């Protein structure tokens, strides 16, 4: 892997941001984002805008992993290439929907949270542990909920788009889990890369945790939010190749987080 450019955010070294068109304002901390707390028209545009940018990052991460690890197994590289195609399609579909509801690229600030963390990893196994198994694993849980939120907000079109994206993301998580199972038999030492990667992400999440009373650019108090109910979606996680024991553990962890948050468990 070639030497990489880095940046430091709250004392944590992360990969430097990918290139962005001038229309985008790239920020480094959640407090600089303008994430709204409701489903107003502005908030809807902002939610879709963020999702478009997240899909863009997903495509860039998979592509960067292909570029950084040319010696990775061919079948894994094929899966990553297909993932690039999927994420690009998600980005285009969501962007089209954003335009339909009156949004535009660059209307809100963006942050390359996932890119900056994932692309610090120096092995292909750590990369897919972070991007696919962790971030996209979390995303399949969240997408399930987002489909409901958009439906309840009277926008079945966006809800349907998200439901379609969910099916693809399950496959992205699944191929990573398949690889880790294979790795456990063929090269168990490499599994420790998964462990180190998860520890790294956890450390960053803690470093970026909002300080008491911290608000974002939209005036939302970042520490006063309500955590959602336990989000883990066992059915989708099972489809994504997680074992029952892993799902049970994820539910336990999430319950512990919700139970100890500053917000109100729902």
């Amino acid at each position: 892997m070639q030497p990489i450019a880095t940046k430091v955010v709250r004392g944590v070294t992360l990969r430097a941001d990918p290139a962005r068109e001038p229309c985008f304002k790239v920020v480094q901390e959640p407090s600089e984002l303008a994430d709204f707390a409701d489903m107003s028209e502005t908030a809807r545009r902002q939610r879709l805008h963020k999702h478009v940018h997240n899909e863009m990052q997903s495509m860039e991460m998979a592509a960067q992993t292909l570029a950084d690890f040319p010696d990775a197994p061919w079948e894994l590289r094929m899966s990553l290439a297909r993932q690039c195609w999927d994420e690009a399609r998600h980005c285009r579909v969501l962007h089209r929907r954003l335009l339909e509801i009156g949004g535009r690229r660059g209307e809100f600030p963006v942050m390359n949270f996932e890119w900056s963390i994932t692309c610090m990893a120096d092995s292909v196994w750590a990369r897919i542990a972070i991007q696919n198994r962790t971030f996209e694993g979390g995303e399949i849980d969240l997408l399930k909920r987002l489909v409901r939120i958009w439906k309840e907000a009277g926008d079945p079109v966006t809800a349907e788009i998200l439901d379609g994206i969910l099916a693809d993301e399950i496959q992205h998580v699944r191929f990573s889990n398949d690889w880790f199972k294979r790795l456990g038999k063929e090269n168990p030492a490499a599994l420790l890369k998964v462990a180190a990667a998860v520890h790294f992400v956890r450390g960053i999440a803690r470093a970026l945790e909002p300080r008491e009373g911290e608000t974002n650019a939209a005036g939302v108090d970042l520490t006063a939010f309500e955590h959602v109910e336990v989000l883990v979606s066992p059915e989708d996680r099972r489809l994504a190749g997680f074992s029952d024991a892993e799902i049970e553990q994820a539910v336990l962890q999430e319950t512990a987080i919700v139970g100890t948050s500053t917000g109100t468990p729902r």
Partner: protein
Amino acid sequence: MASTYMAVTGLEAAPLADGGTVIYSPKTSKFVMLNRSAERLWSRLQAARTEEDLVRDLCQTYTGAGSDPVRRDVQLALESLRGLELVRSQPGVAGDGPAPASREPPPGNGEPYATPAVQVLGEEDLLKVFQLTAAEISVAGCWWAGCRSGNP
């Protein structure tokens, strides 16, 4: 002269969120999970230590740890670690020098003592232990839609 104990070389380790760690031995191809107090023992074993050194260290590190039960725990933990080929013993001189056996170590002022636990993990167990949920990521500031008033 008391026997000393020391961790074998060539092992890999990954820290756990709760202060424990997972060790991988390429020689035995085994993953071994240590809880926080076992990890403390493990960290001390990077240099040669006597059993008494380890007992004293645990008593001074944790609260509510009496030397007799801790000694039994240390003996069991060392036996497990040796059985898993993670620690070797040898007659020799301890890193810190032996503590007087008759003297009770001063009480610790840290967190409550928990018996050191050494557990062998299968590959699936390992993957189970190293998971991160959306809620945990959301702590970093409403990642995607992990919180009610944040958004994707």
